[in-house]
């Protein structure tokens, strides 16, 4: 009797909703035209792209669909916001960001440093929270852009985006936020948050991989990084990914409608799971800010265990979780997020991210709870300290 594997890694990627798959398939079928073609196949494709743009705009409270530019995903959006903002002005400039950003932001900042741009990386507190005061103190006369993620992908901590937005507006500095993990999970309003640039990605909100968007506030100018055919109002060239864009639009439409309810459900499932885990397993710490997190994210430190080994043991038992970000498959280093939060080494090493989302059920959680205590015990027993530890 093999049961279906249980997917608990929604921060890495999410299953595609059937309505989204349907929208995609419409444009893999007879409606396959190039949206830039004049004929009916083209007009049909164009209408789908523009409808998707409206849904995306509505999800984040953009004033106009024109402010949404479709990209190949969150990574491109992040790159574009930073590279485009730097390249649009004379001089090298300065960037303020945090040490817990996704590599799409962090690595790009580091590369920009090589070409002379200066970057200030703000460390968060132990809960993963970036201080507005530290952002304020970091802004200089030559600061071109502040980039602080809406919510962190590893621990789920939600940043004080409205306050940072107000600060940047006051100081006349562009404000970009990587909302790849927040969109569709939290209620987002780019106007009350005074965000100038916002990145989002399809595959984190039950749409497809390889599609996303960058919100660019009307009046904000950044240089394009992919040029050519002049698509997307000359801001992002390349034949539009019509099927995936149509799917993303559908996902945004659904998220807009269902987010408050779904988020509540998911958060309470996550809380139940965490409570049970902490009750059944000794020496577990919750990483992040328990009172201020993405609804489905649970990052736990199993002291004395090693995360990857635990992950693989769970995988063979039919549970998909992760040790942190899934983006850098090659990475052997401990999580830069947990390190930047100043966590002790054993909490970092033993950390596991369990992320729930659309489709997660109470049964999934119950099944995990059956298996996890033994798995943790077994993995802990491998470690050198096992000898001196109480149990075995």
């Amino acid at each position, binding site marked *: 009797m093999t049961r279906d594997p249980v997917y608990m890694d929604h921060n890495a990627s999410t299953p595609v909703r059937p309505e989204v798959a349907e929208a995609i398939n419409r444009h893999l079928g007879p409606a396959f035209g190039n949206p830039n073609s004049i004929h009916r196949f083209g007009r049909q494709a164009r209408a789908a792209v523009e409808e998707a743009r409206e849904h995306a705009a509505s999800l984040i409270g953009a004033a106009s669909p024109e402010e949404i530019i479709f990209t190949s995903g969150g990574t491109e959006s992040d790159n574009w916001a930073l590279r485009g903002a730097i390249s649009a002005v004379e001089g090298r400039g300065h960037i303020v960001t945090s040490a817990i950003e996704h590599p799409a932001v962090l690595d790009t900042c580091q590369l920009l440093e090589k070409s002379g741009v200066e970057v200030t990386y703000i460390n968060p507190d132990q809960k993963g929270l970036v201080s507005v005061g530290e952002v304020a103190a970091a802004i200089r006369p030559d600061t071109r852009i502040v980039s602080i993620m809406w919510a962190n992908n590893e621990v789920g901590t939600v940043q004080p985006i409205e306050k940072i937005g107000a600060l940047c507006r006051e100081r006349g500095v562009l404000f970009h936020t990587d909302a790849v993990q927040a969109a569709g999970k939290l209620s987002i309003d780019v106007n009350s948050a005074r965000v100038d640039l916002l990145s989002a990605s399809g595959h984190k909100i039950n749409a497809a991989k390889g599609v996303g968007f960058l919100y660019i506030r009307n009046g904000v100018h950044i240089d394009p990084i992919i040029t050519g055919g002049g698509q997307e109002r000359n801001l992002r060239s390349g034949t539009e990914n019509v099927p995936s864009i149509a799917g993303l639009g559908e996902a945004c439409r659904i998220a807009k409608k269902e987010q408050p309810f779904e988020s509540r459900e998911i958060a309470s499932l996550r809380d139940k799971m965490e409570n049970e885990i902490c009750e059944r397993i000794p020496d577990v710490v919750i990483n992040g800010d328990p009172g201020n997190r993405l609804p489905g994210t649970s990052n736990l430190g199993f002291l004395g265990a*090693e995360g990857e080994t635990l992950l693989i043991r769970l995988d063979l038992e039919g549970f998909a979780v992760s040790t942190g970000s899934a983006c850098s498959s090659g990475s052997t280093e401990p999580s830069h997020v947990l390190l930047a939060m100043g966590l002790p*080494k054993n909490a970092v090493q033993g950390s596991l991210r369990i992320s729930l989302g659309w489709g997660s059920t109470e049964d999934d959680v119950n099944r995990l709870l059956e298996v996890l205590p033994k798995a943790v015990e077994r993995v802990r027993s491998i*470690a050198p300290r096992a000898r001196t530890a109480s149990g075995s």
Partner: protein
Amino acid sequence: MATDDYHYNETVLAHIADPHNTGFIEDTDCIGTGTNPACGDEVTLYLEFDGNIVADAKMEVLGCGAITAAMSAVTDLVRGKTVDELLEVTPEVITGSLGGLPKHKRHCARLAQRVIQSAVKNRSSNQ
């Protein structure tokens, strides 16, 4: 199947999920240790000799999947070997016995080998 330089193969995964010969051996002086400061890996290998031949091997690991698998494999590989033969357990032999490791994890086989050498050295120095 297509080449995959990113993921662990099934052999490695099985080792990680259920590593062989975990634990320690009391009353042996043939103990090797190793660490990988970058990842924070900590490894201990215990060997018990019957004359010149490895009669038992155990290991403890607090480290990533690859080093866990490598050490698990090592505890199988070293059994029945002489001290001289232990020196022939190269990183390639360890990786080979696992059916390969992802490129960015190959250094774990080197760490595992160093731990064998460390154990042998500790024994020799005590003889």
